[in-house]
């Protein structure tokens, strides 16, 4: 659940209520939500706005936890890379849509690639028909199915795969 934090604004003495949400990022060796996949011992620095940078080292599960408000961007320095982290506005796309499936696979680390645009079928409703547009998405679906018994491995995100995907994201603290 979002937390409502009262913070003092530099512009005046009045108090403003800002809706900040917890964001958890896991650096992992492999996709999925198995804690033993976590990468321990990565040094990181997080900078949010003008606040002083916060440094840390990833624990055994590779988790970094942030609290962000709408429109805020956190810069995460880790692994020699910079990640610009923000809250996803508008929530996830429906799991029955191709882009909704891609979003959830990406949340779990299966790397389905960039979300398809509506023009390329991103909003198409998936049923028995495979509407994948690229190998990354099909591979990600097949790998997710392989990891989630008893799904049938066919690279097609039918309703059983969609349901399991939604469940996996919920269990991973994603939605």
């Amino acid at each position, binding site marked *: 659940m979002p937390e409502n934090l009262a913070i003092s604004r530099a512009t005046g003495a009045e108090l403003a209520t800002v809706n900040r*949400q*917890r*964001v958890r*990022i896991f*650096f*992992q*060796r*492999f*996709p*999925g*939500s*198995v804690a*033993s996949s976590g*990468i321990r011992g*990565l040094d990181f620095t997080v900078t949010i706005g003008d606040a002083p940078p916060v440094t840390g080292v*990833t624990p055994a599960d590779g988790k970094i936890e942030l609290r962000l408000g709408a429109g805020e961007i956190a*810069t995460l320095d880790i*692994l*020699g*890379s*910079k*990640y*610009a*982290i*923000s*809250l*996803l*506005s508008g929530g*996830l796309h429906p799991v029955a849509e191709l882009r909704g499936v891609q979003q959830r696979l*990406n*949340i779990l680390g299966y*790397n389905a690639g960039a979300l398809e645009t509506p023009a390329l079928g991103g909003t198409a409703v998936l*049923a*028995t*028909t495979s509407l*994948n*547009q690229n*190998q990354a998405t*099909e*591979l990600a*679906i*097949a*790998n997710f*199915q*392989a*990891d*989630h*018994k008893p*799904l*049938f*491995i*066919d*690279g*097609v995100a*039918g*309703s059983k795969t969609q349901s399991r995907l939604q469940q996996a994201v919920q269990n*991973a*603290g*994603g*939605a």
Partner: protein
Amino acid sequence: MPIVKAIHKSERIVPVRFARAPDANNPSVSSGPYDPNAPEPDDRGFLPHTTGGAVLPVGLNEATALAARPETRVRLIREDIEDAGALFVTLESATAVAITVPTPGTALPNTREMMVKLRAVASGKTHLEVRFGSTTGPIIHRLQVVVHPLIDVRVAGHVPTINGVPFINPATLTPFPAQSTRTDASIRALVDTANVIYFPYGIRFVLDALIDRVGVLNNFKHQGMVDDESTEFNRTTALNRVQNTVNAYFVPQIADGTVLPNGTVRNPINRTIGVATSAKTNPINFGLFVSDIAASGQVIAHELGHLLNIVNDPTNEFLHINTKTDPAIPGTGRVVRDDIVTRRRLMYAFTSLRRDTTPPTRPYRDDVGYGDRTVGGVLTIKQLDNDKTDQEVKDVRKTAAGLSRPPGP
């Protein structure tokens, strides 16, 4: 440019992954022909984690001096990490393989795709570890490496003469010949291709120096044709047979005697390019056939897989090519395996891929890493809870070890 992440509550970031390296020098190349030194990691799924994610097979010819052994290569791809990060590769144990590229102790290049090369040292397993920052930095990814020492399997080649009623080839309006038109050189080339595919799994087929061309089979139904669903199969495999050995028969045509639902027999012409029976379940008359229409060495490699006791499909799941919907199986859970992971298997039921023709077409499926519309050469290594095509390498090596060796020099 930072990597942009708009996150809904949580996200798992897996920075890198391994992939097949078809080109010997360019790690950006993602597709290319079968290569004994470019095996495909078995990366079906990521559980159980005890396997360390993907598994890379490496062949070992112990008769070759260590320094002269070929380098096995694999690509490392930065999937969710910038190119600037310093990455190193190390080995959990150096007893099975040695790292030759990059030079031990040096960082991988700051590019999206990177090449890693290994040299087989001895039979065994280890993990190739990707570390960040230094050779002692945190491990951010792992690849299990399994080194397979070569098992030599003797192959007795036969080109029999098959006498029967002449069967007219409608394409040429002439009868099929009684004997295969393949030369010894072309047969050896097929076996050579099979060996390219099997090297990472530690199996080498050794064709006898003399190919038997004197055998004659009389009173077959059709000239130059073996009906593999009749007694003709066993009559052929008994011809000049070398016991407990791969007897490979090269014939003009293999008849497909399948009776269709309307009662007619399926057109026998140019349909079946190869067939084989398992040495494990048919120890008396096992053998393999390759017809003259088989153009690729992948065909004989596939049939040798059957002979070594692995199947297309343990559960009759490979029913269609490019099937998008199956009216007989409404809803989800289709009983169809035609995903691009499956298409990389040597034992995929079809020896060529067809393009999607029904919109929306999926051209990305035409090349699964071995060239346009070419099936892969992968034998599975991993054991998964959810894939019955598991552990083919284990079965193949066990069966191969029970067959006779090539005659000594």
